[in-house]
């Protein structure tokens, strides 16, 4: 059988798109996948070693496009552990509320991406519109829609006054109602369910063996959630139950995302109701004592690990950041192998893979003939493929009934 090699190669200069993908095709199935990661490595760890801790906080908030709260909180927690500081309870609750709002907006974006990739553009637009409501709330809390910069070492820099708390509650009522509606569509609409079922199957054992984290692991029934496994901050007083599903495919992961959004809304409501009075921040010395700390937090995409080592100086001696996306790279490679080419856009979204600007695909036949295919074309191919597939299945079903 003739094999073709396909390169899906993004080159956007931000941290979101630092991976590209080489797939070798056998007919319309992927025979082999290679992920030569590192297209736009940012050198963040080195950069943090030459800047002060406060400057590092700003750098790390910009590590990824969608998880500034998770990164900032993990870094602050590592600093607080090294300095032996107890964070005020009010600050811990505010961190939880912002973290869960962040999860809400990330999951809405994920769901919108999934809707787009399977050809439901209208649903994509509705979900993006829902997400705007959450972003408006985050902007009101932190003054910015994307980089809300709520954290400071020792606590938070923003309080939640009565007005903002009411705004969040009203937003949750509205978004909660919409999530219920969209969730029922994803769970019951047959065309959506059929498209998602069986796509990108990952068994529970494989998820465990490959070190999968986040909704990707929980969609395969692997109960792995730092908020439950090693609760931190206000989560210690919340008892988070991981949302899992046993389908182990794109459908299972969709169900997990929807369930987690409902759980996040419930957590925020509870935190708002229990928000204690008190200080927002404890004092942190400018220079941390000598030592090391390894911190785990549950970012929207999964487990985020920070390791910080201090030699008593003004900058970290060593900082290691390990993101859920890096943790799931190997799993992605395994999920794509053996799948249809037409499923790749869906699986990329499933993995939360951002191609971003300048994405392109180069088809190489026999290493000589070359043809360039854009990402949009690949997406169109995917949609057409499944429309034909479904039309064929429909015809076959009708013939059978006759």
């Amino acid at each position, binding site marked *: 059988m003739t094999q073709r090699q396909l390169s899906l190669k993004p080159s956007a200069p931000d941290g979101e798109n630092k991976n590209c993908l080489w797939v070798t095709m056998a007919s319309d199935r992927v025979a082999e996948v290679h992920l030569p990661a590192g297209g736009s490595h940012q050198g963040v760890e080195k950069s943090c070693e*030459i800047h002060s801790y406060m400057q590092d906080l700003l750098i790390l908030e910009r590590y990824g496009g969608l998880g500034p709260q998770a990164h900032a909180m993990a870094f602050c927690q590592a600093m607080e552990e090294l300095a032996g500081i107890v964070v005020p309870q009010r600050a811990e609750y505010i961190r939880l509320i912002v973290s869960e709002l962040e999860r809400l907006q990330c999951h809405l974006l994920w769901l919108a991406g999934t809707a787009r990739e399977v050809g439901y553009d209208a649903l994509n637009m509705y979900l993006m519109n829902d997400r705007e409501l959450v972003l408006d709330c985050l902007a009101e809390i932190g003054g910015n829609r994307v980089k809300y910069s709520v954290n400071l070492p020792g606590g938070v820099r923003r309080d939640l006054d009565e007005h903002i708390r009411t705004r969040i509650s009203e937003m949750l009522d509205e978004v909660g109602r919409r999530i219920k509606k969209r969730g029922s569509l994803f769970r019951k609409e047959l065309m959506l369910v059929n498209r998602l079922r069986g796509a990108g199957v990952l068994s529970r054992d494989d998820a465990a063996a490959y070190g999968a984290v986040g909704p990707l692991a929980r969609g395969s029934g692997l109960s792995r959630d730092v908020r439950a496994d090693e609760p931190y901050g206000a989560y210690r007083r919340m008892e988070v139950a991981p949302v899992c599903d046993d389908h182990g495919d794109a459908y299972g992961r969709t169900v997990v995302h929807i369930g987690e959004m409902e759980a996040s809304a419930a957590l925020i409501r509870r935190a708002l109701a229990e928000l204690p009075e008190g200080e927002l921040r404890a004092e942190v010395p400018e220079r941390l004592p000598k030592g090391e700390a390894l911190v785990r937090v549950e970012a929207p995409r999964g487990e985020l690990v920070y390791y910080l080592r201090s030699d008593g100086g003004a900058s970290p001696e060593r900082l290691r950041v390990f993101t859920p996306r890096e943790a799931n*790279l190997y799993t992605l490679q395994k999920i794509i192998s053996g799948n249809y080419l037409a499923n790749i856009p869906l699986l990329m979204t499933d993995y939360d893979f951002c191609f971003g600007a300048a994405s392109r695909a180069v088809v190489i036949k026999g290493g000589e003939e070359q043809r360039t295919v854009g990402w949009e074309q690949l997406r169109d191919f995917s949609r057409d493929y499944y429309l034909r597939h479904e039309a064929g299945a429909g015809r076959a079903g009708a013939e059978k009934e006759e």
Partner: protein
Amino acid sequence: MDQEKAVVQIILERFPVLEGHVRIQREKRVVMDYLVRRDFEKVFPYLTASAGFDRLLTLFGTDDGDWLGLTYALVNQDEVVLLVRQRVPKARPFIRSVCGRFPQALWQEQELRTLLGLKIEDLPEGGYPLPDGWPEESYPLRKDWEVRRFNKSTLTYNQPRTSFGGQKEDGR
């Protein structure tokens, strides 16, 4: 702290020589001192195959003067994180890959090779994450690698001049 004490006990029962080199850092954290490669290659397989530490959370390297250190964060069923370490001399930075046991460590080990200059046996070739044309023997995560000496447009690194007395130009 029962889970953490149990971890220390399991390790010391099998390797009594590590007495005083394994300690509980805090709840859910157990830390081990640096091991030399020979000892590490006995301890690591035991921990991952027989002591229940079957998940690799992350791994990373450090530049510790004349040594390069490696830390492996392992997790067990009780979610206790154990930091296992080995270190090798910078002059002979040879270690063995753990990809055979944890295939997902591939990118992290490639990063150790390109950013820190470790020579990793049994690791597939790959230049992650540095671009093609990166100067040889130039390892950005080493402490003596300075950003200001690197020219991004020509991808060249200007080594500090060394005088006859072995001192670098900035007096260090």
